[in-house]
């Protein structure tokens, strides 16, 4: 189906557009119900988009969301739910911070060392869930949820002063990292700095696309996601795929905290952002697991996050942004499913019409599509 199909494009765009519209309408209803203007918060938040410092904040935040969402998306592509991205990136950032504070190599070695530490930590943590799933049949959903909770305890343990922790006032930190491990940002005048690792996010996005769409491994992965039986029949080892996908997902997840760690905080403290992994799930869903879609979704999320504090100064509650995020995710999943079924029915109708007209369908892949869609 190389031919450009207008309806297919329409279908692809309809999902997110309907979802966003529904979410905004629903949040407007919430605003009206609480006796506030349903329009002003949006105009305020759109105005924020014009300020360069907010733009920088949005880009920086989006880079972390983007990496976390990519990690989730890899799992989604083969029906694996890595709910543990949250624990993986936090633990990985902590380990990177610890290594960065204790090892002191020249920058050319230090930065790769830190990246590697983060990737390996994340992969190790998700790998536990992967191994349990492959060898013992433990659902990865439950295993990663448990591992998230365990990661919290591990981090608290590593924060102890006689382990790796350094107390700064009331705050637990891991001590300042050596400067060779810092990554300078791109200064944008008074607006602040864009994290250097934003480019890592972009590279990961390109890498994700290449691996999934242009390699044998990516094909196997997508095939396993579309139909495990079909993939197994064509010689894909499902267990190996599960384990590899889990490790890959965890490895990428490990990088999610690094833009802020190497670019700004230089230590893993109580103030380190949490919950990015859970937000990543919503972002991956909104972006339909495609690298470009996720980028837009991450920017949208970061905008909601960074523009909403302004609302507090105008008598609104910034939490409306969280409601919006929740509503977006819920309406996104519903509208995607509805649009998908609508497209499926459209396809079936067309096949039916062609069959009725006496065409031979052997060359057309419509029939296989229909079966796989089930």
């Amino acid at each position, binding site marked *: 189906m190389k031919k450009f199909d207008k309806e297919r494009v329409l279908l692809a765009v309809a999902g997110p557009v309907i979802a966003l519209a529904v979410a905004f309408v629903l949040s407007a209803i*919430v605003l009206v119900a*609480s006796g506030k203007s349903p329009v002003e918060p949006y105009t305020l938040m759109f105005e924020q988009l014009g300020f360069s410092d907010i733009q920088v904040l949005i880009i920086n935040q989006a880079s972390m969301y983007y990496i976390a969402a990519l990690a989730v998306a890899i799992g989604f592509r083969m*029906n694996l*739910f890595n*709910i543990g991205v949250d624990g993986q990136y936090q633990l990985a950032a902590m380990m990177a911070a610890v290594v960065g504070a204790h090892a002191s190599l020249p920058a050319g070695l230090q930065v790769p060392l830190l990246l590697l530490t983060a990737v390996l930590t994340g992969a190790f943590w998700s790998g536990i869930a992967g191994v*349990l*799933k*492959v060898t*013992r*049949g*433990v*659902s990865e*959903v*439950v*295993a990663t*949820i*448990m*591992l*998230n*909770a*365990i990661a*919290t*305890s*591990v981090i*608290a*343990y590593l924060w*102890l002063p006689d382990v790796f922790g350094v107390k700064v006032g009331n705050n637990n930190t891991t001590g300042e990292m050596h400067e060779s491990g810092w990554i300078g940002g791109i200064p944008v005048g008074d607006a602040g700095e864009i994290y250097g690792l934003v480019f890592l996010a972009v590279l990961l996005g390109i890498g994700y696309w290449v691996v999934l769409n242009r390699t044998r491994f990516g094909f196997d992965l997508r095939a396993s996601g579309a139909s*495990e*039986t079909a993939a*197994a029949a064509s010689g894909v080892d*499902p*267990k190996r795929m*599960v384990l590899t996908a889990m490790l890959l997902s965890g490895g990428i997840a490990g990088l999610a905290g690094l833009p802020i760690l190497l670019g700004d905080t230089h230590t893993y403290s109580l103030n380190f952002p949490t919950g990015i992994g*859970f*937000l990543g*799930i*919503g972002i991956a*869903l909104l972006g339909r697991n495609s690298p470009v879609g996720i980028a837009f979704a991450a920017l949208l999320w970061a905008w909601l996050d960074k523009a909403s504090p302004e609302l507090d100064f105008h008598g609104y*509650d910034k*939490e*409306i942004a*969280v*409601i*919006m*995020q*929740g*509503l977006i*995710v*819920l309406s*996104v*999943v*519903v509208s*995607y*499913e*509805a649009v998908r*079924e609508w497209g499926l029915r459209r396809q079936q109708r067309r096949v039916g019409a062609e069959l009725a007209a006496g065409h031979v369908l052997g060359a057309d892949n419509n029939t296989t599509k229909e079966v796989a869609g089930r």
Partner: protein
Amino acid sequence: MTAPTSAVDVNQPSLQPAAPTGRRMSWQVLLLVIAGALALTSIVRIITGADGITNVSQMSTALQLAVPIGLAGLGGLWAERAGVVNIGLEGMMILGTWFGAWAGFQWGPWTGVVVGIAGGCVGGVLHAIATVTFRVNHIVSGVALNILALGITRYLAPLAFEGHAGGSAKQSPAVETLGHFTVPGLSDGLRDLNNNGWFLVSDIAGLLGGLVTNVSWLTLIAVALIPGTWWILWRTAFGLRLRSCGENPIAAESLGVNVYKYKYIAVIISGGLAGLGGVFLSIVANPFYLEGQVSGRGYIGLAAMIFGNWMPGGLALGAGLFGYTDSLNLRGGSTNVHALLLLGALLLIIGAVYLVIRKKYAPSMITAVIGALVFAWYATTNEVPNQVVSATPYVVTLVVLTLSAQRLRMPKADGLPYRKGQGK
């Protein structure tokens, strides 16, 4: 959990167990195992002198911590028995805590209970609409619901609670207590018996004492819901139909069961139970709503249910285990957990011996080595860091799932989308 079932599906055990052995275990054997575990605990208590591990207050705390987990687990059970995976329990509990406290501080605690349940039900309705009507992936919908519930409560909390005495953007004003009861003579008698420190007798007294001392009425309801659920789901026509939707919806439909209706009912009840668990947190465990109060208990409830093999009794056992390990956190954690290391080591060694008898030498060796390591940990230290204590329940769950996942049997059509008339 979500992938379609097939011959090579790694989600599924490759061989169906000949019979669900867990359920067929006779009462005598089960009682023997429980008695054995208690005896072992008693020995450990006497050796280590950590009386805290079975005293009345410990058990009473454990019960209080187990109730919300058990209620969330029951919620999960209802939904999954009808074939809907409910990872949105967490969000439904959050709704329960907020709505319970919101109604509770204004119109009294019992109104709070009802409104909290209703709040959970609303979450259930949303989940049902997404998963049953629109056939959205169940886990995706659940995750979305969790985000949404968090957002709604965070948004509403400042609007509803700020300006009231004791209320703030993150905390509700105090809710009156629902009232406790202590079974008069029995409680004191058991406590005395518990204090004597006799082998086994005192431990059983401690366990029972915890069940009759300072029990909230809501706890009583929650405990009664477990046999209640069992009776409804396994002994009534309604329950049979509901479970048939989770096992084989196509067959159920062919017999005239309205599958959508049953799934909706099940998910809404599931939300109500999770909401009740939330209410318990914000009215009984604490007399107020606090942001982040649920802190993953919905997920733990789900784990307890899986641990219990999708059965109410097993679920209660799982919730009890979580509640107990959680209570160790609150009461003299590090010494008590240190004592339990010895119990763990003993259990591992017994397991190793059992494996030798079953002629499984390699797993037996591994178990024995781990047991020895745990024993070495016990012998060389005097305390266990607090962080280990807080991780214990989760590690235990992982270990239990690792050991038993192959023998668990979830409802056959659990998590699969179902379309009306799809069998035609």
